[in-house]
């Protein structure tokens, strides 16, 4: 398929008419626009028809992205879009399935699904809008909030330490692990494209600015850096882990951005590409099974 097969969907048309209700200064805008560009560019460069992209949204500020892009979408429920994504990919191997999820959404409510998608090497992409706070429910701590964080459910500050989601993903068997930051949009777009094109499960934790409840812009601007080429051997577990552990979402430390891990493994859904039969063929099969019953 050549890129100009979809003239009705220029990249500009990818922004939907839905009214955008994110706060001024919200990092979600960067994610939205970089995902839009990533989709448009992949469609052009790789000849993927625009109708073959599917976005899923969790519930939270992040999930609104499903409304804001003019792309197929399943705006699902809190914490549960990842298994739905696997279902979509199972039904149609041509689809590029991308989950936009939140840190409360997928690291708290639905963490097991994330781990199993990684374990299976389900051929989907998960973009976590990691603002380290529950935005839409007005500011509670999440699994990546730093120790001491005072949210509305924990006004005294939490004593817990955050999860390092990249470390968890590595332990779970994810085959692509990256981190982006909403103030580095070009870099973010490249990560999105890489993740989407990765065969198998791809995971991008995006440090997303929440302008209203947890604005870490200064902190991130000070600490975040793009991993220089060659500094990580993305094919090696130990090398990836070393880099992943450089910052633990808690300590004051340099925050590496980029791709930490990228390997090939058999894709879960491919084992199920059995012959599809239509209904009347299936009925013949039923009759056969009953006739030869034992």
């Amino acid at each position: 398929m050549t890129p100009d097969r979809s003239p009705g969907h220029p990249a500009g048309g990818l922004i939907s008419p839905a009214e955008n209700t994110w706060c001024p200064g919200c990092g979600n805008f960067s994610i939205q626009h970089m995902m839009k560009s990533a989709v448009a560019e992949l469609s052009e460069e790789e000849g993927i028809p625009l109708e073959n992209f599917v976005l899923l949204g969790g519930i939270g500020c992040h999930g609104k992205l499903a409304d804001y892009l003019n792309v197929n979408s399943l705006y699902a429920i809190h914490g549960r879009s990842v298994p739905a994504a696997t279902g979509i990919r199972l039904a149609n191997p041509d689809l590029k399935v991308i989950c936009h999820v939140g840190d409360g959404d997928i690291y708290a409510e639905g963490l097991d699904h994330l781990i199993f998608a990684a374990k299976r090497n389900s051929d989907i992409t998960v973009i976590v809008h990691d603002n380290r706070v529950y935005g839409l429910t007005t500011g509670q701590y999440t699994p990546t909030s730093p120790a001491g964080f005072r949210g509305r459910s924990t006004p005294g500050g939490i004593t817990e330490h955050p999860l390092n989601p990249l470390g968890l993903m590595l332990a779970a068997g994810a085959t692509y692990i990256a981190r982006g930051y909403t103030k580095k949009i070009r870099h973010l777009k490249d990560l999105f494209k890489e993740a989407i094109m990765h065969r198998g499960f791809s995971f991008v934790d995006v440090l997303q600015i929440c302008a209203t409840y947890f604005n870490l812009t200064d902190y991130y601007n000070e600490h975040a850096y793009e991993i220089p080429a060659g500094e990580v051997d993305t094919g090696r577990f130990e090398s990836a882990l070393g880099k992943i552990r450089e910052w633990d979402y808690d300590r004051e430390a340099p925050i590496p951005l980029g791709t930490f891990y990228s390997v090939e493994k058999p894709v879960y859904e491919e084992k199920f590409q059995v012959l599809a039969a239509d209904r009347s063929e299936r009925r013949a099969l039923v009759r056969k099974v009953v006739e030869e019953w034992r």
Partner: protein
Amino acid sequence: MAEYSVLIGGKAGEGINTAGLSIAGLFSRLGYRTYMYFDYPSLIRGGHNFAIVRAADRAIGAHRTPVDVLLAFDQNSIENHRQKIHDGTTVVHDASQVVRGEGYGLPLDDIVKEENAPPITKNSAMLGALARVAGIGREVLEDVLRGSVPAKHLEANLRVAGRGYDAVEEVFTVKRGDAPAFPVLTGNEAAGLGLVHGGLGTYVAYPMTPSSSLLHFLANRAEDLSVKVIHPENEISVILMALGLAYAGEKTAVGTSGGGFCLMTEGLSLAGMSEIPVTIVMGQRPGPSTGLPTYTSQTELHFVLNAGQGEFPRLVVAPGDLEETYAWSAAALMLSWRYQVPAIVLTDKTLAEGAYSFDLGSITPPPDREPVLWDGAGEYRRYVRTEDGVSPLAFPGREGAIVKATSYAHDEAGFTTEKPVEARELQEKLLRKGESLKAELAAYPTVKTYGARDAGTTIVCWGSQKWVCIEAAEEFGARVVQPLVLSPFPTRQWKETMIGAGKVVCVENNATGQLGRLLRQQGFDPGRPILKYDGRPFAVDELTARLGEVFA
């Protein structure tokens, strides 16, 4: 009618279920309709399992307490069933295990040793003994074994069966019946086949009694039936994967029991709002909570009718035997797609794991219903308002369509809205689909009756308790009325059916009379409740006695 009842009992892990199915096979081969009740506790080896196989010269679907033959692998298999033994009962026991035995003792340990056969062949010895006791020819016995035992074990089984045959005497003579030799299937197997008839593409489930055997059956026959079978990490994932599959165009069903269904309720509500079709086979067992995991109940009717937040239509059907299970599983899947509503096939352990003669030829298949698909004209709007409430479907990957499905209140294109008018219209659209579904169901056999209309006494029942009611009703010349569809409730059919019902009782496997409650809610009088809630289904004679108290 000619009928025979055989109980076979032993320890878990000794293959009592399979042995029971072989006994059913023996009677099937002779032209009988069979039914098997299988009773087992929640453990893997040891304990006490038993199967009661009943065969008759007409359709049946329930057991009776007294048995003609009792095949006992151990002492428990005699002691636990004293009340089933009567003067005419022939007892055959494993003399190597049973000390206080009666009837014929077979030295099974010696037999398998002498025949150099594996222990599992002891079942064949019992089958052989049964054949002889029942005056069934050796050639029929061998025929059945040939049809059920894998080739490499056949010889040993035949030898051991012969030893059983020779060790006892003919006590009575089962005459050849005139039914064809129907295969013996469980309710779960019929459900699986029915779903495939309806167009199933993928089945997703997490194991849970009594629905696990549906998962196992479809997984085992996945290639034969051209379906995909997926077992994910838990039931939340099950229902969400199913919705993902269906959103992308794949006809999908899931199976579970009460505890797993709890975990699916949030996904069910998502299905309701997003209008993504899914069929749930819900096998009831006694709760609350883990309860009696391997036993039976009819306790989830109101739970499935009301599960999930918000108000949305759903199809709930409760088949009562294999043929209904097959037909309504197929119908549920098709109607779920036609109206984009969740469908629930409500079974229970009695039906799901009970085995029955299956007459595929006798089934009037439900009408073929196709989903309404987008015609490709204009701009695609996933939730376009229509008269019957059904919006045409397109699936991602279709050129020209942007398919936006959502859990939020939404406009026609699928974008979130919070406007009062749109919210109201959306709710009305959903309810309109329910009305359309209800209208369509008017042409289906949603309420079935058995017996004479002017009987003057009526037994109301649902699901697996249908056949025990039919048999017990005969003793009283009563009529049986069974709703097949519980939602949308077939109000008109029910009203018409119940005209002149006379004295009414409502038979259920629960403690609070759930169908009774539903009937009252629909404005009908459910009559006197007859309830059983010890985890076991009614036996025909037991129900007859209970009915006697009311009808006397």
